[in-house]
């Protein structure tokens, strides 16, 4: 068992990370952190971003022409979003790692304030009251920020060392997260989920639940917590549908995927059109910018929640399967980072991000394919949408930060 003390990232000498992949060691520079970055992960994200940009361009230009706007509007905004997202990632990486825990309550507070604000001044889109309109046509979705805040703060709470508080007490055995940590994490998430449910944002609620579930499961707490959460989730789901706590539109969207033909012009319309678009793509697709369903604007919300349908139709099984593969690669590389990280906080942050991206990927593509009910969740790095783009890049930055920290703390010779 290798036990390494806490070290700051102040050390600027770069060496190759231990393990199977020795890296070349360039001279120290301000870009040295780049060499700590998982190149495969970065490549996957880059390709996803490029493909996403092209798909957003393909899915929006006809719509914009019909609406009488310049066809590049969404393309430019999307590229701008990616740029801002990359900056966010940089910020996350440049935050001193040890300060992340300190920052966690602040970020959590900001996210909470945003969620409360959205209830007060937010605008409703597609039944969810999740947007704060900003000047110049921009809008913010505090729930996206909340996902990152949940990841950071739950990781901080779960990895809290009681011994730090109670001086002199014997340390908890390794791999043993006390119940009060789990309960604190549940309480934090409970607050967020209540606020998100109040926005009628079912998708974010489920993402938060998935993040919480994954982190509690992996943190090493008693298995009873994991099982208990599964049971509660199942009960809550049944209860919400049966008591009518869900709005009609939510139930309709949830059930429409099972039988899209029941109301092809109403709730089932999206799913039916989405499936037609994907199905008609075949093996090689209709060709970029040549999908009749996409260019004919048959799939609603195609640049955001249904971007995968554009991939399915225009790029075919090869392209759409490639997107799934790239996302899979992204998730697997993140898991690898989590597995390598010996620091519980860092590992939990990465696990939270994996659960977040993983759930959103499965839900988003699953709903396009008619496997999952329709909820408004974007496909990470591909869908159009500012807030989600910033949040996912920020989360990616956190993952890089964790990897970087692990690399410098396990440098041989230290």
């Amino acid at each position, binding site marked *: 068992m290798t036990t390494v003390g806490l070290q700051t990232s102040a050390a600027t000498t770069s060496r190759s990370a231990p393990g199977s992949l020795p890296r070349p060691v360039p001279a120290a520079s301000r870009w040295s952190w780049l060499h700590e970055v998982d190149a495969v992960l970065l490549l996957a994200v880059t390709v996803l971003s490029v493909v996403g940009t092209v798909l957003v361009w393909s899915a929006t230009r006809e719509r914009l022409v019909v609406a009488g706007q310049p066809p590049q509007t969404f393309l430019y905004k999307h590229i701008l979003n990616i740029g801002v997202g990359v900056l966010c990632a940089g910020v996350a990486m440049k935050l001193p790692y040890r300060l992340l825990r300190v920052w966690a309550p602040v970020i959590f507070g900001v996210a909470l304030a945003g969620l409360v604000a959205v209830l007060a001044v937010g605008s409703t889109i597609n039944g969810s009251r999740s947007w704060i309109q900003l000047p110049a046509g921009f809008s913010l979705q505090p729930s996206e920020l909340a996902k990152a805040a949940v990841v950071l703060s739950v990781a901080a709470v779960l990895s809290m060392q009681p011994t730090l508080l109670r001086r002199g007490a014997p340390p908890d055995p390794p791999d043993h997260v006390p119940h009060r940590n789990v309960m604190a994490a549940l309480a934090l998430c409970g607050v967020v989920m209540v606020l998100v449910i109040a926005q009628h944002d079912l998708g974010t609620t489920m993402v938060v639940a998935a993040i919480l579930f994954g982190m509690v499961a992996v943190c090493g707490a008693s298995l009873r917590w994991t099982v208990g959460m599964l049971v509660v989730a199942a009960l809550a789901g049944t209860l919400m549908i049966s008591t009518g706590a869900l709005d009609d539109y939510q139930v309709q969207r949830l059930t429409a995927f099972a039988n899209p033909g029941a109301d092809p012009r109403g709730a089932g319309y999206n799913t039916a059109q989405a499936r037609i678009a994907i*199905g008609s793509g075949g093996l090689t697709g209709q060709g970029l910018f040549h999908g009749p369903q996409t*260019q004919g604007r048959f799939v609603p919300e195609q640049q955001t929640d249904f971007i995968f349908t554009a991939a399915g139709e225009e790029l075919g099984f090869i392209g759409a399967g490639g997107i799934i593969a790239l996302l899979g690669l992204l998730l697997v590389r993140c898991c690898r980072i989590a597995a390598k990280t010996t620091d519980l906080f860092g590992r939990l942050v990465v696990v939270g991000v994996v659960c977040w991206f993983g759930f959103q990927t499965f839900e988003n593509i*699953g709903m396009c394919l008619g496997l999952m009910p329709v909820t408004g969740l974007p496909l990470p790095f591909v869908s159009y949408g500012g807030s989600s783009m910033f949040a996912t890049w920020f989360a990616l930055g956190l993952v890089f930060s964790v990897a970087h920290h692990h690399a410098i703390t396990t440098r041989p010779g230290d």
Partner: protein
Amino acid sequence: MSQVTHKTRSSRRLLVLQVLVVSLLLTLAGRLYYLQIHEGQRYAQAAASNRIRQVITPAPRGDVVDRNGVKLVTNTTSLVVSVSRTDLNKQPDGGQQLLASLAYLLGKPVDEVVGRTKLCGEPGAPPSPRCWNGSPYQPIPVAVDATPEMALQVLERREQFPGVTAQLTAVRSYPSPWKVNAAHLLGYVGPITEQELQRRQQQAVQELARAGTALDDQTQALTLSQQIRGTDLVGRAGLESQYDDEIRGSPGVRSLAVDHDGNVTGQADEIEPVSGNTVVTSIDARLQAVVERQLASAIPQTRTRLDHTTGEPLKADAGAAVVLDVTNGQVLAMASYPTYDPKVWVGGISSKQYAAITGQEANFPMISRATQGQFAPASTFKVVTMPAALQGGDYPLDARYDCSGTYDIPGRTVRNFESLAYGLITLEKAINISCDTIFYRWAYEMYQRDGGMYVPNPAIVDTPQALQAARQADARDPMMTMARRFGMGQPTGVDLPEEAKGRIPGRAWKLGYWLDTRADYCTAASAGYPGVAATDPTRAAYLQQLARENCASGNIYRPGDAVNFSIGQGDVLATPLQMARVYAAIANGGTLWTPHVARAILTPEGQVVRTIAPHADATLNLRPDVLELLRRSLVSTSIRGTSSSAFAKAHFPLWRFPIATKTGTGEVYGKQDTAWMASYAPADNPRYAVLVMISQGGSGTKAAGPPVVGIYQHIFGVNSRGWVDSDWALYPPSGPSQALPRLTGSTSAPQSGQRPRSPASASRSGP
């Protein structure tokens, strides 16, 4: 800060999480494979039907022209104002305000415009045909006769009339040359019904299949049903219905690529519509106009006279006139009274108009009395029963017969017309004066010879054997068989829809009718008629007595039935067209032609698609001497018989144009007499059979005589003073030309008033 290792339970759970993530993504990939590769073909089809819309371009209906090529029905463009239901529903008040202001603009009642936009069958919708029978997604025409000013207002005030459009559309038009109506011949067009729709959908799907448009059937049928419904009209009566398949043409189909909002992004395929073919009829519009005018003027003239038994004014509630070409069965003209204006059907009929042309008050103007009206033919029927007696009963032609005032048969005494006795007279005179008693005697004697009163065994009256026996007895009856040979009791086969077949009330008919009605009669026999008894006890008693007889022995063919049959009374029924055909057959020497209205089908360019050749149903095999006697008698009837007064009043030069006529005055229980005059001319070389019937018109000579004479005046060019001017004649001595008209597109009706010139009415000029 807690540290974890690779071997802790955290790492194990992380591994589980990783496996979970990968398996979920594999699930997605599997599903993607299923949709795109396995089901790809199906979804590709669904995508095609998603974005291909088929627009049916209706074909212009073909024209109907008369024998000279004058258009009777054609198309014209009209400004049609339509309303989109989709846009109506977007209005906060469901479009109430919009429709109200639109109705005001169009000058129509609000209810009517609102009703027209309702789907048939939905709550608050008026009954068909005043509701919308088409797809709710199609614009609904609310006015077809909009003026350009109305259209401009609608188009310029878009914000006030969202979803309202005005555009030029082809609608049916009736040029009415010489003010011809001919509604019962031409028929009208109306919205398609569900059954017709299915039939046509199959047809359209075949068209598409032939054109090679591959779409899955369900989508195709759905698209077609939305397109065909409502927009297309089908023939509803008359020639429009009979030759609908020929007139309709085949619609064009345009396959358009559309986007999500239905905006057309391109045209995938187009099949041009094919205009409907032209039906060339045997009708002569000029003669038709004359016949209609003669009939229409005879009705009010008849109403000025009084019924000879009751002294009340004659009702003259209906009438019919038929002119046939005796050499081939072509219908030269045919009219029915009351009539209607086929224009009222164009673009949807209003409630008021619909009530006016279907109601009892108007005496059902939609019914063609000439082919669908059935009346007792009365004495006009004697040209059937006399040869029956002479050929089937072997009565001598040259003998004299006793025309007594009355004639006794078992159980009752039957009377001659007005009980007049003429003593011993020739057969020619018997026809001239229309002596009934001679026919009674023949009928009763032949009836006895056929076996007399045929009483079927009461035990077997319900069985097919009884019916068989009754049929055999009918077949032995010379008068029944002769009537059948003349085509009575069965449809003539004229090419007009829903023809009535008349009735030969023989033993078989009596038995069948009795079996149908026995229960009702037997109930009435015991219960009486309390409703009638309250107001008229005498009549109630009479009806009860009748019910008793009918209950007990209504199946028996009695001597009274036989003698009534011999003079075309009792239960005999015939349509005016059937009787006209009987006289045409006598005129042409015994050939029973199938009456025909259409002569040929031409393409819109005038190429002959097919000609409709005259078709002879049967040859009557009348003995030449019998035929000669009949013709001689009918000719002299015009000179010195029952018809003579009509010709005399008009100073008609029978010496130059001999005309064979026979009148009939049919007694109808509870109604005034039916007036008939049947004829053919020229008697020496027959070409025309003219028949006029006026229901509740009283005397045949007085009511039906003047229009018959009037028609002949126009045919031969005779004025009311009896002067002949061949320039006035509709036809040269050789009769109407049999050549098909050449349709060059410039054949239009001359302005009304050029021809025919209108001689003064026959009766007005009489001394």
